[in-house]
């Protein structure tokens, strides 16, 4: 039982990492209906900026705030300068542009900061709590807490604020959104900016755990995709729960299903996703309406 609880905790800690990045994916999808393949690399780049600021002697929270501001500005700029010219083209074209961005950010970070591992200071204490023999790391609890907080903020934003509704309306159907008097082009830019902010938050949160290097997000992003898919791209709550589920499933399957073994846990995670999609195509928490891309 203790073993099970410890694995559950380990799975939840990993899951919280997936969840925080999945939130950024949900955000960009909700506000632009684009899947941004560069999302992880943008988050990584922001995290490097935070690292550089801290390395230059700035206090952690000041560096964090400045990084979020830069990320927002960067996200808006990318939308206005790079995505804008192709926004009327097909989804495939936009996907390819985000792939281009992925290559650029990854290699740029490597060129500037190198590919060697960097440690990143954690805003949370590095200690642990022991609850009847089960070890819980305070850092993981911190990541978990922030992910929940971001989730709550996003849910409120998208459901109850005029700006949030306007962003969703723009993503769903631009023409009628414009008929509502919404400046849709700015909504899209705003969506990119906010997604960059959430991504940067996720990056700064997870960097102390997975360490900082230009490739830190590549594996992560896949599982975040999985989490977002599982929960449904429609709901921030779903993304968090989906991310946690993927993390727990990975830890459990590797340990308890011996004939599969840990080396196939990835494959199994992917298979679960496909199965979930088959029976609930919009994810566990998505709404009924099917979507076209």
């Amino acid at each position, binding site marked *: 039982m203790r073993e099970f609880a410890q694995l559950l905790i380990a799975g939840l800690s990993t899951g919280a990492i997936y969840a925080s990045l999945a939130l950024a994916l949900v955000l960009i999808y909700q506000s632009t209906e684009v899947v941004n393949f560069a999302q992880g690399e943008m988050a990584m780049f922001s995290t490097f900026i935070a690292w550089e600021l801290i390395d230059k002697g700035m206090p952690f929270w000041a560096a964090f705030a400045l990084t979020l501001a830069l990320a927002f500005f960067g996200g808006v700029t990318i939308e206005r300068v790079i995505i804008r010219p192709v926004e009327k083209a097909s*989804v495939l074209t936009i996907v390819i542009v985000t792939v281009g961005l992925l290559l650029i950010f990854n290699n*740029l970070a490597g060129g500037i900061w190198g590919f060697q591992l960097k440690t990143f200071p954690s805003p949370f204490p590095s200690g642990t709590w022991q609850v009847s023999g089960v070890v819980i790391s305070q850092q993981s609890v911190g990541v978990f807490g922030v992910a929940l907080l971001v989730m709550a903020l996003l849910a409120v934003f998208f459901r109850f604020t005029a700006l949030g509704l306007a962003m969703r309306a723009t993503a769903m159907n631009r023409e009628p959104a414009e008929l509502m008097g919404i400046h849709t082009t700015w909504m899209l830019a705003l969506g990119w900016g906010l997604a960059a902010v959430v991504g940067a938050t996720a990056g700064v949160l997870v960097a102390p755990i997975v360490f900082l290097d230009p490739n830190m997000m590549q594996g992560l992003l896949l599982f975040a995709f999985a989490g977002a898919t599982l929960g449904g*791209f429609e709901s921030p709550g779903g993304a968090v729960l989906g991310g946690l589920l993927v993390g727990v499933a990975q830890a459990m399957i590797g340990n308890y299903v011996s004939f599969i073994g840990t080396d196939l846990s990835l*494959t199994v995670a992917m298979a679960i996703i496909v199965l979930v999609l088959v029976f609930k195509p919009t994810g566990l928490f998505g709404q009924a309406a*099917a*979507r076209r891309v």
Partner: protein
Amino acid sequence: MGGIWQRAHVPSLAWLGVALLLIIFPPWLAGGYRIFQFTFVVIYLIAILGLNIVTGYNGQFSLGHGAFFAVGAYVTGALMFHAGAPYWATIPLAGLTAGVVGFLFAIPALRLSGLYLALATLALAISVPQILKKWESVTGGVQGLVLTKPHSPIGALTSDQWLFYFTAVVALALYIAAWVVLRSSVGRAFVAIRDNEVAAEAAGIPIARFKTLAFGMSAFYAGVAGSLSAFVVAYVAPDSFDFLLSLNLVVGMVVGGTGTIVGPALGAVFIEFLPSYSQDVSRAAPGVVEGVVLVLFMYLMPTGVAGFVATAGRKALSLVRRRTADHAAAGPVTPTLADQEPRAGPGEGG
């Protein structure tokens, strides 16, 4: 877009001529290493052609064709390595195996569309190398399988030249096959489903059957491409079929021009040569160059090279017409992007 096939009899003959010239001459003009590159262009061309069938003509978004490519490569690799099969004999089986895998995968994928289908195929692309690693007795695990490079049966040709002609002939045959299928009622069904699934179903087209067929056929092409790559490289290993391969195929398809005749060829040239030229520009960060080129390409030619040429051609044509004929005369309705047409059907799509 589908109309191009119908309207293109004369241009397609011209393209056939160009293709033949491109097939016959390069091996005599270039060294072995260049021929190897050209051979890979042909291999990518076949895979992109396959991807085009399912994505360009049937509207199903796949980010996982590297998986079918890998299946084809490993069928050939395993047959050559373990059973000593001659390389040419493995190709049909490699294609069919990949096709069956694609068909089976398409069954659950039927329920998915757009983004979710893309993610499911992405999952496939990531899973397949893992399974290959695990299945060590057949696949050689991470170390892969070292194969014997085929010799040329014709004395006048080097092994490289022979392999180029061999792959080129396979490609030509597959090109013609695709052309025939896409012009037939099957191809029209593919396109009808892409343009409006509800309308296609109402018209009595069995959606499930044609969607799985398109996926299977597409995977067959990717499998054949993989099979060819296995003996051209004379080595198969999981590292050769990472997610970047799948992504590259999509890039090739889009850059060349989705759903066009010449698109796959242009796209194949692009993905084969871009990395080498990028590192000539910047050794420090070739990825930045690659990314920038990719973004610029999409910026300048959002419908791919083929789409761009077609649009430019049309514009030039209508300019000439406008000068000569009455300004009121309107050109034919030929939207370049399905997406620019008003969305069909109220509401449901959201």
